[in-house]
């Protein structure tokens, strides 16, 4: 028991929470933006995977981690643009479209990996680059806080800044206002001349942007290579985090942190002989319970309002 608490309260643990949270948080912010515009993008997992692979390949061929990151982002946006074209233009069902993206990514990344590296498992034969870790002067010298907050991968800091950025974007910019209006009352948006399809298109591109950043972190930060199905369900966790966060930026951030912590805690809890497999289900159970409570409240409210 003691060793459990000592693990849990170590700075290493707090550090790893932030690290593990990064990809979840980035993808969850992406899911948040598309949901706000009224479209459920369940292709997050696939988009992350494609971003992870593209980052590795591009960085290997250009020798630059930054160009690799750019490649990852471009690939994520392209994939989302395809999804957006099909769902908004020729009216493919958005959920089935998301399934298609995931199906494409899980096999397609292996397909491309094999063509590029001759290996179907990992990208070890590629000399891919890694995005740098940042040691923040002054901050790193503060006891306790320094070791937790300093020394992370650059994308971890990006993810934290992104929380503020997305919050500001949704709350305080014309684009954010329009995204939310499209999701909440498309007719109202239309009546003041906002193009619903255009805003949803932009929102989907943004969701792809954030998902691919999360993917790039997986292969160019968390690990230094690509391996098949390396996102291992983080895209789904992100969707859960958004749902549990109740559709708010702060809620999504907190939920992502909780999911990251559960993830990081899995190791610590193994000391107590609680199996990690079961711990990994906690976030999902929490999400189901959260959704249930929300649905109960909503249906009660609706019943009261029934029959105008």
């Amino acid at each position: 028991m003691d060793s459990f608490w000592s693990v849990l309260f170590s700075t290493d643990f707090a550090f790893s929470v932030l690290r593990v949270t990064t990809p979840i948080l980035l993808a969850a912010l992406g899911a948040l933006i598309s949901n706000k515009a009224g479209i459920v993008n369940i292709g997050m997992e696939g988009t992350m995977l494609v971003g992870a692979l593209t980052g590795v390949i591009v960085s290997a061929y250009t020798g630059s981690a930054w160009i690799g990151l750019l490649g990852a982002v471009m690939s994520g946006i392209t994939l989302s643009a395809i999804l957006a074209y099909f769902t908004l233009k020729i009216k493919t069902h958005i959920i089935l479209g998301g399934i298609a993206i995931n199906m494409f990514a899980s096999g397609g990344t292996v397909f491309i990996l094999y063509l590029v590296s001759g290996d179907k498992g990992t990208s070890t034969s590629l000399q891919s680059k890694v995005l740098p870790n940042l040691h923040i002067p002054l901050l790193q010298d503060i006891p306790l806080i320094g070791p937790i907050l300093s020394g992370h991968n650059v994308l971890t800091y990006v993810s934290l800044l992104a929380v503020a950025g997305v919050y500001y974007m949704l709350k305080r910019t014309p684009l954010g206002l329009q995204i939310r209006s499209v999701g909440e009352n498309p007719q109202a948006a239309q009546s003041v001349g906002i193009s619903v399809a255009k805003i949803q298109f932009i929102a989907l591109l943004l969701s792809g942007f954030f998902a691919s950043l999360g993917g790039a972190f997986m292969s160019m930060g968390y690990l230094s290579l690509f391996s098949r199905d390396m996102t291992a369900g983080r895209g789904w966790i992100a969707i859960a985090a958004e749902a549990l966060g109740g559709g708010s930026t702060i809620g999504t951030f907190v939920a992502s942190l909780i999911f990251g912590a559960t993830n990081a805690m899995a190791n610590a809890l193994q000391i107590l002989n609680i199996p990690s497999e079961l711990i990994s289900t906690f976030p999902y159970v929490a999400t189901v319970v959260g959704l249930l409570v929300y649905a109960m409240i909503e249906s009660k409210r609706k019943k009261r309002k029934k029959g105008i």
Partner: protein
Amino acid sequence: MLKYFDAIRTLISVAIALVIAFLIIAMISEQPLETISIFLLGPISTTAQIGNVVEMSIPLMFTGLSVVLLFRSGLFNLGAEGLFYISGVIAAIIAIYASMNSFIHPVVAILGGSTVGALLSAIPGIMKAKWNAEVLVTSLMFNSILSGIGLYILNYHLRDAAAFANVSYKFQETARLANLIPGTRIHTGLILVLCCIVATHYFMYHTRWGYELRMTGSNRAFAEFSGIKTARVIITVHLIAGFLAGMGGAVEVLGMYSRFQWSSLPGYGLDGALVALLAKNNPLSVVGAALFLAYIRIGADQMSIMSDVPAELISIIQAIIILLISAEQFLKMWKNRQLLKEAEKLG
């Protein structure tokens, strides 16, 4: 012509996907024509290959059928994946630890798996029927939860430490499904799934419950207006769909393996959505859709063994098929022209 619109659109979608696949093969293969011919003809080259196609189609039929029921009742539930997996685990437990004779044992194991599948499936169903909780997200969450629980059972209670990999103890011989056609691995599960398909077809088009299901799915307000208790229908559909998905998992485990060895979700649930899409939510068409999907997968496997193109090409084909088949506007112009013609004919 209009009657066949959906069929034609499906065929065109599949054709476009295949043409794109051929183009990709042509770009990357040293001998493109040979590769394409392996891909297209490999699955019917030997009896064993044909057997592979059929045996792979069995789980696809089960999950496809399960998803057809859910989609048909207007529910976007993708939970077949997790149910398929956990029911496989349940069947494995019964296959490992119970001892019975070789007739009863698989029956009990399959029923055990299906029942668990049905009960678990009812949870999102009840949440939807009673409080209108979004069934898509809850069913996805259930997939992850069931995957975690199944994995825990495998690692902590079924795992054979003596085995070289992360697999369970061996099943009792009595639990395994009998072989149906010598020279292949086709097992009695095929008969079971075909029976289920015919039964579902009959259920859907010739029984009161099936009628209620179709009306609820087509227009819930209309069903209510006619006096159908739609909440009950939704829960019933979830029970049946869960039962079928669960049966699929149990049958697959007992028919194809001697140990339980899935350390992650096997993917048949989402494949089921693709099958349902190809089958246009029609139970009898599930047979053809599942066989087609199994066919191109075996073809891709053959291709990757005998040529320089990896089997994962298949996922690109599948993605294109999904995008095109479910696209309302795809070929809509053509449909509208036909509609107009039809209207003129009727006057």
